[in-house]
């Protein structure tokens, strides 16, 4: 893969990770609202579903956190790719 392609790939992955991070955060919020709603009912099965919703909310929050960390790593990779590209460009002149 060429240096430019690598750079574009990194940018694309970072952009998608940012999008997944946002979606995960939004879905986590919705799951938490579902938990609150379901908890209003005094019904055993609904309460079990509520517990599952709360677990889902926490796992989506985890996905959001992991995405944030991956974005940082990808940014580091992108910078490294950029530096390598500059070095290669300079040495070819």
């Amino acid at each position: 893969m060429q240096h430019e392609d690598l750079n574009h790939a990194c940018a694309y992955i970072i952009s998608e990770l940012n999008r997944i991070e946002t979606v995960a955060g939004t879905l986590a919020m919705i799951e938490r609202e579902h938990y609150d709603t379901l908890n209003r009912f005094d019904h055993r099965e609904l309460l079990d579903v509520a517990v599952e919703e709360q677990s889902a909310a926490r796992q989506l929050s985890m996905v959001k956190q992991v995405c944030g960390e991956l974005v940082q790593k990808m940014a580091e990779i992108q910078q490294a790719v950029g530096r390598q590209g500059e070095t290669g460009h300079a040495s070819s002149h």
Partner: protein
Amino acid sequence: MLRLIENWLRSAINETVDKALTRLVRDQYPESIAEMLPSLQKVGGVRFAELLMRSAQGAPAPRPLGSPQRFSPWEQLLFNPVHLCRFPTPENVPVATAVTIGPRARRPLTVAIPILIAGMSFGGALSKRAKIALARAASAVGTATNTGEAGLLAEERAAARLLIGQYNRGGWLNAPEQYRQLDAIEIQLGQGAQGSTPQRTRARNIGPDYREVFGLAEGEDAVIHSRLPGVNSQQEFIRLVRRLRAETGVPVGLKIAATHHLERELAVALEAGVDFVTVDGAEGGTHGGAPTLQDDMGLPTLYAVARARDYLVRQKAAGGVSLIAAGGLITPGQMLKAMALGADAVYIGTAAVIALIGDQAVEALPFEPPTSMVVYTGKLTDQLDEDRAARSLQRFLNACVTEMEMVAVSLGRTALADINKSDLCALDPVLARATGVQLGLVAPDRQERLFPELAGRWQPGWLPPAEPPGGSLPERQDPLEPVH
């Protein structure tokens, strides 16, 4: 007719009780059953029962679930809610519960909640159904479960989204084709309930499924050695850790029984480059171990966590090397206090097993103990409903984390991982000094009244979690400075 029988029975019982009580009151000790009362009080109920078991069997009584003694004074630590000096967290702000184990590893392990299921082996401890139910519950809440000292149980691997495997002293999970299937590797050199004592499961208690998973021949005992096979020096341990890290990329950690040698053990672990350390306090559970190993060895979990964290900070390893606390953590309050003292995550074993059994305990009682539904050699293992058990544990874990989140809100924190020693106060001066938690009996800027050597060296908010090497504290600052 029934009335007549009832009256006759009442009369007979009354007469019998009267006679018994009269004898109890009038007879001297040598002739009275009342002699049992001071004897029981002197010896203690559990010790009395175990004394009789030893005299009947001539061998250690394999007591389940660890020591009944409560070594760690968790109740002497309290959290500090905030109102104005710092504001509580608004209720619409979520509290982050996820933690990453082994952030320096090529493939760190991130879990959605900081509670992990402790190592409890298939066969050596639990039944296959129980292991699968634990794995399913862990996966449902986004956390990891642990193989314990066993081989790789295919059903457990399939049910667990995240599986920590113990590279163990029996050698059953130590082949590359096994440990490469794990999400983290925990080198097991000891446990709180048994130290580094060897253990043996007799062939008569080993079924075909157990033999298959452990790779045992028919009639062969399952033996856990006191040392890890092939590791007889610190250098061999260091080489093992480095090899496993390079080969797998997953977090590689060390599990030990917490002891007074803790720092010396951790020094070797850090030199080896472990990604995480599990300290299992003296309250740690087991499926069945000698009472003396459980009651009379090790270091309480509370002090073990505080010391381990302190050592990691002094070695500038905190943050890079994760600390997992284990041993007798039953309530969410205890779990969160362990985290405030420096643990990144906690393992629960006994609490998980009790929650797993849940309301199915009634199926066993009153003629069998509830644990007979989950231990490998139990009589009622076939009666455990995996779905119900997994759901029961899932509810328990959810309740625990919810309670932890509630505390975090009251502390003004937005992440469980942000809770630290400054969020605690101690009710006991020795505990305060030992753990670095401020003493709740006097104001933050008046701690020197009880600890004169701190005069002029105390920060009004709290003892900073990242105490600089050498233990020197910052100079006193404005006493009205708000806590952060």
